């Protein structure tokens, strides 16, 4: 029995039992992402409710993406705001029929890289390059503001971290991640492979202790 037939039988049973059914809800797509493309098209037509719904749906993912990279909630807030301004400015570059999620992430990634480069230049004027090249340090400083996933991905280099974040948290496919990162599917696979190797090492050696202390497994 297919899903539509199953739905029909369920509908008939409910009608028989005298329960009112909202047809719109009954035919809502099973996966919430199915609608993002349609919302995006409406956003391009100037529909404010579609824009708000998109912001509601996409923002938590983007915020988490930024948090996994920057480890600081205030930075992630700023980057999220900046990303939406950029998205709004270039919303005409989305073409219907294309997956919307990689489009959002490509812009978010651009904003993050821009931000990182600016902060790097700013810091370069103040201190030596070696002092700021430590990427893991902020985890210790601001770990209270980062979520469990950010801590888990902290040992990975930035390029691997973003790929894992998109694949495992945003639930994107390899092709979608390749689109978002302007790279090939092969390159994404390679990054995932390396990231898993590193994660296996980290979780296998130090992760057992951390797992027992609850840093990795309980959050």
């Amino acid at each position, binding site marked *: 029995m297919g899903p539509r037939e199953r739905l029909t039988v369920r509908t008939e049973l409910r009608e028989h039992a005298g329960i009112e059914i909202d047809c719109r809800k009954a035919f809502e797509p099973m996966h919430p992402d199915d609608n993002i493309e349609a919302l995006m098209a409406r956003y*391009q*037509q*100037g529909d*404010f409710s579609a*824009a*708000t719904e998109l*912001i*509601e749906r996409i*923002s*938590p993912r983007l*915020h*988490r993406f930024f948090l996994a990279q920057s480890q600081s909630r205030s930075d992630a*807030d700023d980057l*999220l*705001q900046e990303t*939406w*301004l950029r998205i*709004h*400015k*270039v919303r*005409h*570059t*989305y*073409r*219907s029929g*294309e*997956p*919307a999620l*990689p*489009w*959002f992430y*490509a*812009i978010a*990634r*651009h904003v993050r890289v*821009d931000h990182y480069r*600016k902060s790097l*230049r*700013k810091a370069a004027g103040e201190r030596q390059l070696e002092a700021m090249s430590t990427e893991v340090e902020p985890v210790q400083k601001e770990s209270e503001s980062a*979520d*469990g*996933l950010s801590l*888990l991905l902290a040992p990975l280099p930035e390029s691997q971290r973003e790929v*894992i974040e998109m694949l*495992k*948290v945003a639930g994107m496919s390899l*092709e979608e991640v*390749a*689109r978002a990162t*302007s*790279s*090939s599917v092969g390159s994404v696979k390679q990054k995932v492979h390396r990231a*898993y190797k590193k*994660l*296996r090492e980290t*979780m*296998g050696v130090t*992760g057992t202790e951390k797992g027992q202390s609850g840093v*990795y*497994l309980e959050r």
Partner: protein
Amino acid sequence: MKDEEVDSVLAKAARAPYVLQPGTVQRIADSIKPSLRPVRPLPSARVLSSGLVLICATVSLAGAARAGFFGFAKMDLFERLLIFPALILLCWVAGEGFVHAMIPGSLRRISPGAILGFGSAALLALFASLFRDDQTDHFFSIGIVCLLTGLFHAIPAALLGWLLIRRGFAVNPVAAGLMAGVLGGLAGVGMLELHCPNFQAAHVLVWHTAVVPLSGVAGALVGWALRFRAESNAREHAQSE
């Protein structure tokens, strides 16, 4: 530890509820509301790529029409049938690369660097197989003129290409600049093949082919400079605030 275990740890961490600070969504929505107007989406990548190929062909033909079709007249049918379709094909590949560099979230089949390398290598292979004249008369003096002529035609082709897809958004301006440069360079080579009657192998291999990598590198530098300027402006703006 196995991959499945890593997977389950990641999945567990990802499933943890994630909420934004209250008011964040409303604040963002309010910030975009005043400028929310209908926008016209960009045409499909195929339409834009075709437009870019057309621009290259037009620049090449216009340049050759002004300087003379001496090269085309000297070529035999076989050479014409190999060189010009190959140039159109390379223009199409570079055009697609340029379009993808200007549209976020596009699926990139070949990286801009690979397009530059592949395009230059393909031209070298093609010219090496067609031109067998080993003489090197006035190698530098004539060669420099051809190189400059090719680059001179690469600039308008790249600028017109950029004009066509200026509404796009380059997530990587260096890659977009590189692709614009390669595209312009191919238009320059097209013009040289139509115009230059010097079929000495060394001349064509070095000076004609060099137009593509040189204009590609110049385009990448322009992209880098534009990004640098944008960053500097943003920094100054932030400091003034």
